[in-house]
């Protein structure tokens, strides 16, 4: 008698894939097919510059561990999964990400969370230029990027929504917490920056404000999440070291044109 086909078990054994020798297309195909067959824990070993890891995957509840250095556009258009990078990441992390969570235990390159509209990116170390640009929030979707270290120029450029937190761990005279043109063109959302911030670096569309009670209430769980994720011992909850940066107007260029 033929046996009844059985459903895939609810919790599968963790899937381990070695990326060595695989093209990114094949690697991602393997990841997708693992997810389709029900995997919830996937570990990618020997990753070395493979692009698009997790890109365009709609699968809440899936965790992808990345060992090695992932390539560009990690988690682009991400829709649900939780990606943990145990090393540094390169450029384009979380490009136009919709939902999910990306943790990077090292540092990340340029253009993190471009046009991000949901989910959460946590980065232990520094980030490059143009981080969190064009970030957007809409209703219940409010993206969040927490950067442990320092950021380059154009941080939060054209930000239109969501939240960025820059902790500036390891900042010094030679390594300022954030580069120039911070928040230029920002017209929505909010950013919190910890540490010494020179006002001239800010775009003219924004202002610095000390934190109020709401800010503290918002930040506290965020910072706790960061510390827990990366096992950071540093005392981060000194709210007076933070400033809040918010746009003056939702319409920065309203008077630029004449009809």
């Amino acid at each position, binding site marked *: 008698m033929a046996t009844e086909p059985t459903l895939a078990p609810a919790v599968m054994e963790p899937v381990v894939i070695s990326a060595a020798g695989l093209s990114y297309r094949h690697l991602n195909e393997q990841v997708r097919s693992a997810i389709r067959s029900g995997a919830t824990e996937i570990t990618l070993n020997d990753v070395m510059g493979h692009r698009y890891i997790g890109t365009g995957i709609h699968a809440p509840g899936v965790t992808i561990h990345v060992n090695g250095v992932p390539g560009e556009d990690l988690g682009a258009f991400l829709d649900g999964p939780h990606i943990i990078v145990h090393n540094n990441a390169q450029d384009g992390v979380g*490009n136009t990400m919709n939902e999910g969570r990306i943790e990077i235990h090292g540092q990340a390159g340029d253009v993190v969370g471009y046009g991000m509209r949901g989910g959460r990116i946590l980065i232990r170390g520094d980030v490059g230029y143009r981080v969190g640009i064009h970030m957007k929030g809409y209703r219940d979707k409010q993206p969040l990027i927490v950067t442990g270290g320092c950021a380059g120029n154009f941080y939060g450029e054209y930000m239109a929504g969501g939240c960025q937190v820059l902790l500036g761990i390891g900042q010094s005279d030679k390594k300022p917490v954030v580069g120039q043109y911070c928040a230029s063109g920002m017209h929505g959302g909010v950013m919190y920056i910890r540490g010494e911030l020179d006002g001239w670096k800010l775009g003219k569309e924004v202002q610095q404000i000390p934190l109020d009670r709401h800010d503290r209430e918002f930040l506290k769980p965020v910072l706790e999440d960061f510390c827990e994720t990366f096992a950071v011992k540093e005392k981060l909850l000194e709210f007076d070291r933070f400033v809040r940066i918010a746009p003056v107007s939702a319409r920065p260029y309203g008077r630029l044109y004449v009809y």
Partner: protein
Amino acid sequence: MEYYEEPNARVALGLRRPEPGDWYHGYPEYHVERDDDKCIRCLVCVRQCPYDCTFYDPYRHGVYNVHENCVNCRRCEFMCPTSAIRMTKWGAGFRDNDNWKQKTIRTVYKQADSGAVSLTGLGNDREYVSYFDRMVIDASQVTNPSIDPLREPMELRAYIGKKPERHTNPPEVYPNLKAELPVIFAPMSFGAISFNFQRGLAMAAKEAGTYFNTGEGGLHPDLRQYGDHAIVQIASGRFGVSLDYLSNAAACEIKIGQGAKPGIGGHLPGEKVTWDVSRTRMIPEGSDALSPAPQHDIYSIEDLRLLIYGLKEATEYTRPVSVKIAAVHNVAAIASGIVRAGADIVVVDGFRGGTGAAPAVIRDHVGIPVEVALAQVDQRLREEGIRHQASLIAAGGIRSSADVIKGLALGADAFYIGTAAMVAVGCTACQQCHRGRCSWGITTNRPDLAPRLQPEVAAERLTNLLHGWAHEIKEMLGMMGLNSIESLRGNRLKLRGVGMTQVELDTLGIQQAGL
């Protein structure tokens, strides 16, 4: 609802007083002539004017105009049930001067009034050479028969996307768009245009078996049903871009540039971001929607490749990826790079393309005509042996089926029509798109104006336009003895030039008429 004003709220009662800072409006440009005998005071025109130009004076029981507000949109003229209204130019205008034309003087006034960038809508309105208008088409006479398209099959179907270089068994298959005629509706975002218009475009695209392009404004939930006929755009602002948006569409298009304003981004002013626009773009209501020119993750061709393949990964290689660029000086080399970066479709948008809003100085002086760009791109891709790797869509300034035929012969696979589609549904080219109160309900979402264009009406008119063009294209194909557009595509022998220099002819790759 708060910012709605009764259209006749500005009752001037005949007393004109230009503001010190308003010289621009101090000199009316148009004159609304009203035949008082015919006017029945039904006030239809008063209710229809969104530019505060027409008002009713109850004391004189008459309808009057604040002429300096008139933009010559001609809505009142169109709607007047007794044809009592006629638009004319205001008087003599400024003293005749070919150098300092009316427009030039007025623009200087406007900027001196405000100190701001002069914004405008629609496409380039300057008197540049139209190469389309200097090309003529071949026809069969005696030696080879023309074909009667009424009886004979005539194929306009275009597959748009990458093709294999050679046939193999089994054949290589790449995702392609299948358009029943090589005309696609150009990217126009909801927000810049009304929902009704976009819906009309979608309905017409479905009906005619072609595609519409969402522009960079996201895909409205109500238009998801037309996803099979939607090309969705990804621009720097990433409005409404989500996995669902990408995978629900027929193709994804990366917008690098726009013909009307190469190198300039989009800027949807906050007042146009209504509730519906807001949920489509997934941004808060009333906030500016800024989409600057550069995609901030694309600063080089390899970055473009990164995004192209990012989109392919996200859609699991099931959708063609298009890249749209403005036609600029070295467009051939750029297009070649784009094809080599993996794009399945390259859109070249000429400088006559329309826009919802652009600084006039850029709209009028930047970019090149699509005809030459197209000729050069097609030639370059052929020379490099990569023409099959991508389809070529020409956009910006396609006004008629003749332009389509000529563009096909120059080498395009398909065409975007934007302004032509707007004109089809009533646009009078008054160039006020940027003001968000289009009197025809095309480029506005103001709730009192938007219903003026009904999706079914728009769809019907657009379908009619496409049918008309399709018939004309068929006639012209038949006339050339062809029964499939593939045999016209790149067939430059079917074109001859008139009134062009040899350099121009060579650039277009065609011969002088008579030879």
